[in-house]
C-alpha cells in the first residue's frame, strides 16, 4: 500500500546513489518537482531512463546526478537542443555520460516487456538503420512459425520509477488522464514507485476504464501541487512554454546553468520555495 509522505522523505528513503531510475511523462505530467528534489539531495551515478529526456533530465545531467542515459529523443520540445545533455555527450561535462539509445517504439515496447515480466520485447523496427552498430543490446529474433526476422530489445526494469499524476485518494490509489505516455508501464516495471500528485481527494470518482494505478503498486505518494511545471497537468494548468524557451538561454552556458541550479534548487528548501523564487521578478530578470 502506498504511504503518503513528503516528497523530500520519499526521495530520501527510496532513491539511492547508483539506482536505475525512470521518470516518465510524455510532454505532459513530467515529474519536475521530484527531479529537482533528487538534485537537491545530491544523488549521484544514477542510470536515467526516459523516452524524452526533456528539461527535467537536462537539469539532472547538468547537476551531475547521472552516469548513464537510456533515451529515444533528446531535444527541448518546440525549442531546440538540450544544452546540458549535449555538453555531457560532446564534451563530457560535468562528467562522462554513457548513452543507451533506442527508438520511441523500442523503448515503449521495452517498458511493456518490463511491466509484463518478460526479459525482452519483439518489434518490427530498425531494419536498415545504424542502431545495431552502436547498441549491441538491439538484436535479431526469428519467428518460430514464419521464419521472419524481427528486432528484439531487452526489457526495461527499474529500481525506482517516478511519475506525476493528477490525483490520488486517501488510500493512495492514483488516477491520471489525458496524454498517458508510458507511465503505467514504467510504474509496473519498477521495484519501487514514487507518485507526486496535484491533489489528494477523498474518492477518485473515476469514469469506467480510467487509467488508475492501485495503491498497492505504489510505494510513496506525495501531494505536490504544480509538481509537473513547466510541463502541464491536464485539467490543472498549462504548459509553461516561456520557461522552455528561457531554459535554452539558461542551459546554453555552464556558469549560468550552475548559478540557476544553485539559486533555484540547491538554495531552496522544497518545491514550494522553488515556485516562489521562480515567480520573483527581480530574481528572474537575470535569466530573460
Amino acid at each position: 500500500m502506498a504511504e503518503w509522505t513528503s516528497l523530500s522523505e520519499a526521495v530520501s528513503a527510496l532513491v539511492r546513489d547508483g539506482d536505475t531510475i525512470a521518470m516518465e511523462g510524455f510532454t505532459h505530467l513530467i515529474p519536475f518537482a521530484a527531479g529537482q528534489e533528487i538534485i537537491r539531495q545530491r544523488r549521484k551515478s544514477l542510470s536515467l531512463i526516459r523516452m524524452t529526456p526533456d528539461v527535467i533530465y537536462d537539469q539532472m545531467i547538468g547537476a551531475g546526478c547521472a552516469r548513464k542515459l537510456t533515451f529515444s529523443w533528446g531535444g527541448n520540445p518546440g525549442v531546440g537542443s538540450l544544452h546540458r545533455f549535449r555538453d555531457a555527450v560532446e564534451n563530457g561535462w560535468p562528467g562522462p555520460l554513457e548513452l543507451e539509445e533506442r527508438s520511441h517504439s523500442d523503448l515503449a515496447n521495452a517498458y511493456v516487456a518490463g511491466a509484463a515480466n518478460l526479459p525482452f520485447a519483439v518489434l518490427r523496427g530498425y531494419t536498415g538503420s545504424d542502431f545495431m552498430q552502436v547498441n549491441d543490446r538491439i538484436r535479431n529474433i526469428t519467428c518460430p512459425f514464419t521464419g521472419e526476422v524481427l528486432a528484439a530489445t531487452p526489457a526495461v526494469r527499474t529500481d525506482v520509477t517516478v511519475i506525476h499524476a493528477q490525483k490520488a485518494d486517501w488510500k493512495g490509489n492514483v488516477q491520471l488522464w489525458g496524454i498517458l505516455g508510458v507511465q503505467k508501464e514504467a510504474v509496473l516495471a519498477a521495484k519501487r514507485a514514487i507518485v507526486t500528485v496535484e491533489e489528494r481527494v477523498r474518492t477518485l470518482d473515476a469514469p469506467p476504464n480510467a487509467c488508475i494505478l492501485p495503491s498497492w503498486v505504489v510505494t510513496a505518494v506525495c501531494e505536490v501541487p504544480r509538481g509537473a511545471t513547466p510541463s502541464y497537468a491536464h485539467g490543472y494548468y498549462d504548459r509553461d512554454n516561456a520557461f522552455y524557451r528561457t531554459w535554452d538561454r539558461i542551459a546554453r552556458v555552464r556558469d549560468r546553468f550552475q548559478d540557476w541550479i544553485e539559486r533555484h534548487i540547491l538554495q531552496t528548501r522544497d518545491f514550494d520555495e522553488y515556485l516562489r523564487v521562480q515567480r520573483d521578478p527581480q530574481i528572474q530578470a537575470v535569466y530573460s
Partner: protein
Amino acid sequence: MSGHYTADEMMTVAAARLLRNGAVCFVGIGLPSTAANLARLIHAPEAVLVYESGPIGAKPPVLPLSIGDGNLAETADTVVSTPEIFRYWLQGGRIDVGFLGAAQLDRFANINTTVVGPYQKPTVRLPGAGGAPEISSSAKEVLIIVKQSKRTFVERLDFITSVGFLNGGDARERARLPGKGPVAVITDLCVLRPNDVTRELEVRTIHPGVDRRNIEESTSWAIRFAEDCGETEPPATEELRVLRDLKMRTAVAHGDPGEAA
C-alpha cells in the same frame, strides 16, 4: 495567385497539398505538424492526425508546440497510451502516411537525426530517433519536409536513423520493410520524388522564383531533375490566408510570435 509569400510558406503549402483527404497521418512535430494541420483546414478535413504521444484524430485549434500539447488530447477522437500508438496503430499497419522532418538526408531519402561526426565522439549531438525509424518503415507511405541546404542534403549520412530507400533500386523491398517508403520530399526550393527505378530523389517541381542553380548549390550531391520537371503551383490566396491565420492564432496562444513556426 497571391502576391508576396515566403519560401517557408511555399514549402508548407506544397507539403500540405500532398496529404489527401481521409488519410490517416502519423505527424511529426514542427514542420510536418504545420503542414498536416494546414491540409486539415483546407482540403483534407477528414484527415486523421495521429501523434506519437497518443492522440488519434487530433484537431488542434492552434499548432502544438510540443508533441504532447493538451490541445491534441482535448480535440482527439481518443487518446491511447504511447506503447499502444506504436504497437497497435503504427506497427499494426493502420497508418497511411508518415509525415517526417529531417536533420540530414541523402539521395535515397535515408534520414539522420542522430549525430554529425562519429557516433562515439560526435561534433553535433542531434536529438535522436524519436518515432521516426518505425514511422519510416511501417507507414504505408512517407512524406518528408525539410529545408534544403548543403548541410541537410548530404552526400553521405554519418548515421542512418530512419530508412528511405537504403542503397536505392529494390533495396527497400528486399529488406522486406512493410511500407513503401518516401513518396515525396518537400523543401523550401522544390518538391522531389524518387525515380521509379533507381529510387534516387529527383526534382519534380521547382518553386516559383527558384532556379536550378539554387537547388544544385543547396545539395551536396549532383542532384537530378526529372525530365518533365515543372514549376510548383504558387500558394493560392486561400492557402496563404489559412496558413497565416493558423500561425497568428498559434503565436497568440503560445505567447511568443517568434517561435510559432
